[in-house]
C-alpha cells in the first residue's frame, strides 16, 4: 500500500536538528472541534496555502485597474477597510448592491467600483476561468479570497440573519439543499443529511442541522485539499459537488451558491473558523 506524505523530510544526513512539527505560525488553529483529523493535520504545520495568503495580501494592497487604486478601502460588511472578522459574517446583505454576497462576489464589486475594472474585463479575467487545474496555481480571485478569509481565522462563524434578504438567502439555500434533480435524483441532502454516513471511505458531514456531525466544516474553507494540490474556496466546492450531483454547472458567484453558503454558514454558527485549512 502506497504511503503518501506531504513533503515531510526524511533526512538521513541532517546536519542540524530540525523539528518539522510547528503550530503553523499565523494560522492559530484554536478550534472548537478538537481531536478531528482536520485538527491533527493542521497542527502538524506546513500548509502550502500560506503562499496564497501572502500572494493575496500583495494583490489586495497593490494599486491596480483604471483607477490605480488598491482594495484596501473595500467594504466587506464591517465598514471600508475593516478585514478582521469580516469573512466570519459572509455571506451578508449589502445595501450598495442590493444583494447578498459572499467574499469573492464582494471582491469583484470592489474591483469594479474602487479599481474601475469594467464588467467585460471582469468577465474575461475573473469570471470565465476562476478555478485552477488540479495541481496548478490559484487564480488571483482565489488568492485574494484566501487573504481576506484568513483575517477571520480563529473567530466564530456569525453569518448574519438580520435583513429580509439574508433570511431569504437562508431559506432558498435550504430549499436547494433538499432539491432533487438530474438523472440520479441527487440533492445535497442525499449525502449530507445524516450522521455516520460515508461515501466509499470518505466520511460525509451532516449539513442539515446545527447539531449535525461535522456541520462545522463550512468554517474550514477556503482550504488546501491535498487531493486538489491548490487552494479552493466554497464556490469551487459547490461547483464540484454539483458536478457529482449530475446537474448543470452553477455559474461562478451565482445566487444558488451564495444561498447555499448562507445556509451552511448559519448551520455552522459559533464554530471557530480555521482557514486556510489543510485537508485531504
Amino acid at each position, binding site marked *: 500500500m502506497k504511503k503518501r506524505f506531504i513533503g515531510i523530510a526524511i533526512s538521513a544526513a541532517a546536519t542540524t536538528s530540525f523539528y518539522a512539527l510547528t503550530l503553523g505560525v499565523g494560522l492559530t488553529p484554536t478550534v472548537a472541534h478538537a481531536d478531528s483529523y482536520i485538527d491533527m493535520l493542521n497542527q502538524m504545520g506546513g500548509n502550502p496555502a500560506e503562499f496564497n495568503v501572502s500572494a493575496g495580501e500583495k494583490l489586495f494592497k497593490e494599486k491596480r485597474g483604471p483607477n490605480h487604486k488598491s482594495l484596501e478601502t473595500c467594504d466587506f460588511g464591517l465598514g471600508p477597510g475593516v478585514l478582521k472578522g469580516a469573512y466570519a459574517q459572509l455571506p451578508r446583505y449589502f445595501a450598495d448592491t442590493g444583494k447578498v454576497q459572499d467574499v469573492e462576489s464582494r471582491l469583484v464589486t470592489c474591483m469594479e467600483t474602487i479599481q474601475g475594472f469594467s464588467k467585460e474585463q471582469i468577465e474575461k479575467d475573473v469570471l470565465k476561468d476562476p478555478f485552477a487545474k488540479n495541481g496548478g496555481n490559484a487564480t488571483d480571485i482565489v488568492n485574494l479570497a484566501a487573504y481576506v478569509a484568513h483575517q477571520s481565522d480563529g473567530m466564530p462563524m456569525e453569518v448574519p440573519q438580520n435583513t429580509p434578504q439574508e433570511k431569504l438567502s437562508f431559506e432558498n439555500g435550504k430549499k436547494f439543499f433538499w432539491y*432533487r434533480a438530474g*438523472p440520479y435524483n441527487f440533492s445535497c441532502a442525499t449525502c449530507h443529511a445524516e450522521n455516520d454516513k460515508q461515501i466509499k471511505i470518505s466520511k460525509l458531514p451532516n449539513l442539515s442541522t446545527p447539531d449535525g456531525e461535522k456541520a462545522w466544516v463550512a468554517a474550514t474553507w477556503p482550504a488546501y485539499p491535498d487531493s486538489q494540490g491548490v487552494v479552493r474556496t466554497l464556490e469551487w466546492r459547490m461547483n464540484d459537488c454539483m458536478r457529482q450531483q449530475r446537474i*448543470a454547472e452553477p455559474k461562478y458567484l451565482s445566487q444558488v451558491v451564495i444561498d447555499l453558503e448562507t445556509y451552511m454558514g448559519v448551520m455552522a454558527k459559533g464554530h471557530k473558523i480555521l482557514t486556510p485549512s489543510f485537508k485531504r
Partner: protein
Amino acid sequence: MKRIALFSAMALSIGLMGCASNGGGMASAGEDGSTYMTKSFKEVIATSFQAKGSAGLDRLVQTEAQHECSKYDYLGKPLPKDIAARIEKDHYSKVVYPADGQYFGDWKAGLKIAEDGKGMTWNDKPGTPNGGNCINCHQMIPNNPSQGNLGPSLIGYGKTRGNSEQIVKYTWARIYDSTSFNACSQMPPLGASHALTQQQMKDIMALLFDPNSPVNK
C-alpha cells in the same frame, strides 16, 4: 448594547424561520399552495446555472417524484401515502426487463462496474460506458473498508435470498429504478436514467447472485 441588538435579531429571525417552514411567515405562497416553489426560489434556479458537457439545463427541471420528495423534505413532513403510492406504481410500471429473459452476466465485469463511479457528469464523455456507483453507497465485498454506507449492506446478497424468479425480478427492478418501491429512495435509477446498459445490469446481477462472486463468499 450591540450584543442585545444582535440577540434580539437572532431571536426574531429564528421565530420567522419557524413560521416560514410551517406555511406562514415571510415567504409568499407558491403556486402549489405551500411555501416551497416561491417566485424567488424559482428565479434562483432559473438564473444560477449554465449547461456544460452533457449536463443541460433540463437537468434542473424536476420530475414529479423529485418535486414531491423535495417539497416534503424541505417542509419537514412525511410524503403523504397516497402520493407515494401513485409515484411508486407509476415508476414500477415503467421498469424494462431483459427481452431474452436472461438476468445474469459476468460477475467479474460486474465487480468493475460496481467499483466505477464514472458517468453522466459534465466531465464524463457521452458515449463511453458508465459505472454503477455501487460501492459508493453499498458494502458488497467482505473485509473492505472503502465502501459506503448510504445504502444497506449487500454482503451475502444472493446467498441469503436465493435466486427465485421473484427475487431476481425484484432485484432487477431495484437496480432499474428504486423509486418503484420507495417514492423518495436515495438510490439513483441506473436503468431508467440509461446510465447502465442492460448488459451492465446483468453483470451486476451476477455479482449479486453468483455463488462464486466475492459478494457471496
